[in-house]
């Protein structure tokens, strides 16, 4: 298992309303040596949503996803892999809201999955071709993502801000 490549991946979690769960998760990120590239924590009507972009050894992703999903207080986990060379169906933008609106205009059918603390996760209708996406959005940092696995049932709605 040694000498594994590193990958960037994004975990979106719904957690319960006890702040101890968020504290527990931060401690898990620290203890498991998960390098946090960016993180957003926002309150929901009941509980919190946490989105974290991570850089970890590739061979640890499955273990970490499973570890997060079986942690007490975590209600749902969705894992998105960085897929720079393939069609991706989700895009993570570090942006102000006007750029998000323009992106949604550029890709009809896209929807906002999560927004909070300046971070937006947008779902682009599959097959999402982001080849031309940067035109007009050059000042933004995109990370095309593909949803790898989720604990949500297929009918679950995405979480909005």
């Amino acid at each position, binding site marked *: 298992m040694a000498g594994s490549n590193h990958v960037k991946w994004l975990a979106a979690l719904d957690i319960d309303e006890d702040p101890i769960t968020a504290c527990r998760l931060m401690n898990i990120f620290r*203890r498991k040596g998960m390098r946090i590239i960016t993180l957003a924590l926002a309150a929901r009507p009941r509980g919190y949503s946490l989105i974290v972009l991570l850089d970890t050894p590739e061979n640890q992703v499955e*273990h970490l996803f499973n570890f997060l999903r*079986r942690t007490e207080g975590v209600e749902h986990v969705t894992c998105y892999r960085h897929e720079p060379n393939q069609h991706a169906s989700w895009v993570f933008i570090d942006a102000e809201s006007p750029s998000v609106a323009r992106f949604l205009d550029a890709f009809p059918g896209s929807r906002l999955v999560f927004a909070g603390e300046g971070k937006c996760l947008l779902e682009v209708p599959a097959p999402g071709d982001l080849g031309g996406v940067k035109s007009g959005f050059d000042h933004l940092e995109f990370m095309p993502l593909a949803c790898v696995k989720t604990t949500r049932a297929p009918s679950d709605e995405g979480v909005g801000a």
Partner: protein
Amino acid sequence: MRTPVTGSEILLESLHRQGVDVVFGLPGGAVLPLYDALYSHGIRHLLVRHEQAAAFAADGYARATGRPGVCLVTSGPGATNLLTGLTSALMDSIPVVALTGQVPAGLIGKDAFQEADTIGITLPATKQSFLAKSAAEIPDVIERAFRTAVSGRPGPVLVDLPKSVLMEKAAPPEYSSRRNGGGAARRREWRAEDVERAAEMMAASRQAVLYVGGGAITANAAQEVRELAELTRIPVTTTLMGLGAFPSAHPLSLGMLGMHGSYATNTAICECDLLVAIGARFDDRVTGRLADFATKARKIQIDVDPSEINKNVRVDLALVGDARETLRALIEALERRLPGPAHDGRSRWLERIESWRNQHPLAYDQYSSSLKPQYVIETLSRYADEDAIVAVDVGQHQMWAAQFWEFYQPRTWLSSSGLGAMGYGFPAAMGAQLAFPDRQVIAIVGDGGFQMTLNDLATVAQYHVPVKIAILNNRALGMVRQWQEIFFEKRYCDIDLSFAPDFAKLAESYGIRGARVEHRADVAGAVREFLSDREPRLIDFWVDPAENVYPIVPPGASLAEMVVEPPRALVEEEEVLDDLWAV
């Protein structure tokens, strides 16, 4: 209108409805209201002499019964003294519910007297934590705490109870009818085709090994392990946590594997073509150097915790779910396939293993003039009841007990395995004895670990807890000494425990019968008498201080590089070592 009840009364009733029959604890200011309610309640309380013992006792109770063990302590230092016990329970997946007092709600965060951020401090040592915010929510909190402790992969749960909540009056609540004493449903994630594939792999293998860990005991799957082994004629090795899951005397038993596993077992792991892990997590003490672990084998892993899959060792097939249910499905699938083409080949595999066993059996010098600890363990095992529960501390004696004790059934071996917390053995034995007052419970401890928690001899005497305490006394931190000898060129540093009380006299001072044994000829008679009655007793066995645990897999080495016996030079220098500890 119903008479209001206090949070304390609600708590005790909630515990009663969860089937709690004993609590291990030590009172203090923050929990005085609770102890006042306990005064007239039927739940038994064992007053310990240190909160760490309360946690260890709750742990021992839980390991022996499979039900949550409960400890109760006050705020601040009472709670912080639980930390080692909680961490040990988390590492070994033991259901413990820790009830901690807390300062009144209005003082939380104000650095009040005996206030500590208990939940914060125990965050990484618990599976989940709860803060009761009102008397009315106590039933729900307790129900959730117990459910969390036993569900999925069991673990310790902490409930923090502000004094104001314990004193608060509320209308008598509606209590949950659900009781979470153990065996809570564990979610299955495998599909039928996964089991079929596992059965195919097992039927086709010629040199397989079943690698059984503590998860098999947690799932009460010992019967299924045995059925699977006998159906497939696949030999069984257990981890330190898995001891008792398979009978030691069974022809298919390999005993323990890993750092102090036998030559035959470790060699079988190196040579097997299929390794089936059942409730075992490929711990570093088991695998040795990961790159060289079981390289000839395909691997199947059965575990209730999905995060253990591929964590340390990449496996070919994972079955996430309850071990008992999974093994039952696997047995049914195998019954449709066996005997398969590889079945006859298994005899040759078993013969090979037997030849390794004959080549380097677990052994010790039977003719030495010094009292060998292995002989003490064997003698205790020979005279103990088959359903005796043995609780060990941490160190060399723990490894010798794992190697030489004969196991007949699960939940008879209590060991702080993952954390390796010294001081565990004696209080854990107390906890197990409270769970099974009519069974033999034997604490086999080292002189080092025993000195960490011996103050609870008072508890044993006060409540007449008939534990049997066997000290393997080598007047040193033996395992540390062994490592300094082997890996640090005998630069012995701070391992001398020759300044210690006379343990037999110490026991007598508590009103417990004590004895010292120094010679092999006296062991059998002393052990027979030791185990003959239902009284707490202590024997201080003065064993050879130079004895080391073998085999040993050196740190960073593979299982194949195990050292099976001491180098000749070390054997010849034993006399020098004896002089070092001459009293």
